[in-house]
């Protein structure tokens, strides 16, 4: 019996396992972007403190550094591998594809990360223990190493969206996969966000300083830094969306109107906040600064990351691995073959290695059980299956439809790949029939 390389399925009810990854991913982005932005800010402050002999700035850097050490480095360094971990449970073949294409890139990032982590301890703990000239050099190298980690990861996550041309599929080369059409706009977009986040965190520290004169001066500076970062985000976002694949354009057309209003409100609110920091720094209290940090995380970051995840659909990596673990196209450069036709010909129950023998053949007795299992295998990476579930609830899509209508949709749209943001799932008639039968029991 010939199988395809699918792994067991992990499914988290109501939320869906992929969204567990989204939660960890969002926390990681907040922490890791802040840490790289902070590294740049540190270099700026250290340069200024050294050149102008400003001892008061070193006190600020120490406080800022401790905050970051606890906030960014503890959370960031754990959630980084955490995304990886959760992804291996939720999308094993997707993350496997990334690992097997980019293992040396990741290993290179690890070298940078080593320098970054031991560097942050040195940076914070040595402020008063070594001479300032050497500390300044440490700060410069730390900033470059931090940006280096971004430069290395960005090609991998850009490849998750798409390489942008046919080169990678023909050569299988990691550099053709890594340097795609949206790698650089994506990088600069994130650098802008990192700078903004460094300022946002900086405002929390500066607003809490006891020396009012220094506090106001630094709050004003953080306002400028944040404003610059915010501007870069907007500017490079325009470029970034022009480099997205066609299916993403369609999805963007669907999602954008609903999120546009909140985006505009958020942009205005943050622009006013940064301007307040510049014009009236004394009004920026620590409580306000903390609230604004959470606003950006909850209202800004989570929907933004959700959108990016959605725009990638139906693929999880390189536009050749569907979110449901099936390989959708040939990649001659790597000797990879499409599995869609194999599944269409023999059915998931025959080619998935993790089906118990008693369910490999559909019978009247097991039809609903196999229907449920097939629906989980084919759909649960994107859709929650429970009626009334929170994220992309599948049953809502079929509300009021009977089995035949559901099956007709599957055979007319899913099997032909007519919906560009959904995987082409072509299955034998009996398997569609079982899926439709089970879904009908959930919706009616």
């Amino acid at each position, binding site marked *: 019996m010939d*199988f*395809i*390389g699918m*792994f*067991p*399925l*992990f*499914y988290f009810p109501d939320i869906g*396992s992929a969204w567990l990854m989204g939660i*960890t991913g969002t926390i990681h982005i907040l922490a890791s972007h802040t840490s790289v932005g902070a590294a740049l800010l540190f270099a700026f402050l250290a340069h200024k403190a050294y050149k102008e002999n400003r001892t008061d700035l070193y006190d600020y850097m120490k406080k800022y550094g401790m905050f970051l050490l606890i906030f960014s480095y*503890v959370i960031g*360094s*754990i959630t980084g591998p*955490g995304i*990886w*971990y*959760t992804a*291996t*449970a939720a999308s*094993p073949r997707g*993350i496997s594809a990334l690992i*097997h*294409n980019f*293992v*040396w890139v990741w*290993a290179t990032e690890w*070298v940078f990360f*080593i*320098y970054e982590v*031991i*560097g942050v301890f*040195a940076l914070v703990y*040595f402020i008063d223990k*070594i*001479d300032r000239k*050497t500390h300044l*050099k*440490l700060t410069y*190298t730390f900033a*470059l*190493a931090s940006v*280096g980690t971004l*430069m290395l990861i960005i090609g991998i996550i850009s490849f998750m969206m798409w390489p942008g*041309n046919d*080169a990678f599929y023909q050569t*299988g*080369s990691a*550099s*053709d996969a890594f*340097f*795609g059409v949206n790698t*650089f706009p994506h990088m600069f977009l994130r650098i802008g966000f990192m700078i903004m986040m460094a300022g946002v965190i900086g405002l929390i520290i500066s607003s809490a300083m006891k020396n009012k004169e220094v506090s106001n001066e630094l709050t004003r500076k953080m306002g400028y830094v944040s404003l610059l970062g915010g501007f870069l985000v907007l500017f490079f976002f325009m470029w970034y969306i022009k480099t997205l694949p066609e299916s993403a354009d369609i999805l963007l057309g669907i999602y954008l109107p609903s999120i546009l209003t909140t985006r505009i409100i958020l942009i205005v609110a943050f622009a006013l906040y940064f301007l307040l920091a510049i014009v009236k720094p004394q009004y920026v209290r620590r409580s306000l600064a903390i609230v604004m940090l959470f606003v950006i995380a909850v209202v800004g970051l989570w929907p933004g990351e959700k959108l990016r995840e959605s725009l990638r659909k139906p693929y999880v990596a390189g536009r050749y691995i569907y979110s449901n673990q099936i*390989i959708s196209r040939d*990649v001659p450069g790597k*000797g*990879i073959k499409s599995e869609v036709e194999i599944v269409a010909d023999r059915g998931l129950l025959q080619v998935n*290695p*993790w*089906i118990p023998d*008693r369910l490999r053949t559909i019978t009247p007795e097991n039809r609903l059980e196999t229907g449920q299992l097939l629906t989980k295998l084919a759909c649960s990476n994107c859709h929650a299956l429970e009626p009334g579930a929170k994220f992309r609830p599948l049953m809502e899509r079929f509300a009021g439809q009977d089995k035949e209508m559901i099956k007709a949709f599957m055979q007319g749209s899913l099997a032909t790949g007519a919906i560009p943001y959904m995987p082409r799932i072509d299955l034998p008639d009996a398997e569609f029939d079982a899926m439709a039968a089970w879904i009908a029991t959930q919706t009616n």
Partner: protein
Amino acid sequence: MDATLLNTLRDPAGVPFYPVVFQALYVLTWALHAAFVLLAIGSITLSLAGSGKQKRSADWKLLTAHMIQTGKISISLAILLGIAPLLFTQVIYDPNWYVTNALSGIWVFAFIYALIVGYMLFYWFYYANKKGGGRAIGLVSFAFIVFAGVLMHVFSVESIQPNEWMGWYAPGGVVDTSGLSFHMHPVRLLFMVSLSAPVVGIFLQNYSDFLSTRNDFTKEYIAFARSLGTTIASIGLLASAALFVVWMFMEGLLLNPLSLAIVVSVLLLLVMIHFVKRSYLTTLWLVVVALLISGMRELIRFQIMGDLGYSVYDYPMNIDWPSVVMFLLTFVFLGFTGVAFIATLAWRAGKSEGVFDASKDALVTRLANSTFAILIVWCLVYFGWGMFTVFKNSFA
């Protein structure tokens, strides 16, 4: 489970270099990771013990503060160094890695948050201890960290039982997608944990040797730290040796040459901690022991998989030279120079009283300037290579 299926589960992209290199890197980096995990567990345990004794003893007060600091940095380094073995294992043993994580998906998710909560609470303990309290929070932190460690052990143990996977996934023929699989090997776990005693014991010897050149630490304190280290390491090594023998007996590997080499090397370590004055030499030997234990773990896995017909050495290859070269050059130039810069700086600053003027230290200055130059060149090459690739592929 047989080799045909295991080979089907391999990534169709193949591996981008010789599998034996990934295997060697796995053994090496796991040993480094384990060393800091064990140091973290040992130093946190000691700091918790010390937090109860510090009111009665000035020596314990100082030691507790330093052990908290050691624990804090060790956890960070353990996480950092843990990334590499995670990476290398899933390159050549991807069937094991992905099946395990899917079967225990909910624990995989819990692991991350247990570690975050445990580590954040440890920082709380660090600040609370400065004011002389926080023991309870330290204990809670420790519980979370140990739980995370147990979970990691569970994943390792599950990954080397391919014959059990289907039974766990579909017990009685009913598929269970909850990701709740949880299977332990208590003896193996106890052996690994027991190693934290010799690791922290030898670290205490290093610590006393390091401080012995400084005038701001008393001779009595330095002797106290060394003696405590020797006692903890001695007891710990005997316990570890006994547990190792039981584990190897259960695996049927007691008389394997590697197993015997580990027993002999552990006993030699026991002699060294009592008779070798320069404890840095003992630490070097400890590294060798850690590599041997890491090798034994790999031998067990390799044999289990070999019995099923799976060999990492016949993993299909698609060598990707540009990324291999990028890694090697970055590892050699940035890795060695950058780490040497900070390590030398830390060592010399630690040996100095007051502010250390590194700008007058020729070696530190040269290392700092070289690290900076390497990073600049690296960025230039990155952008040059990237732009060339984008233009080449866009206009091809």
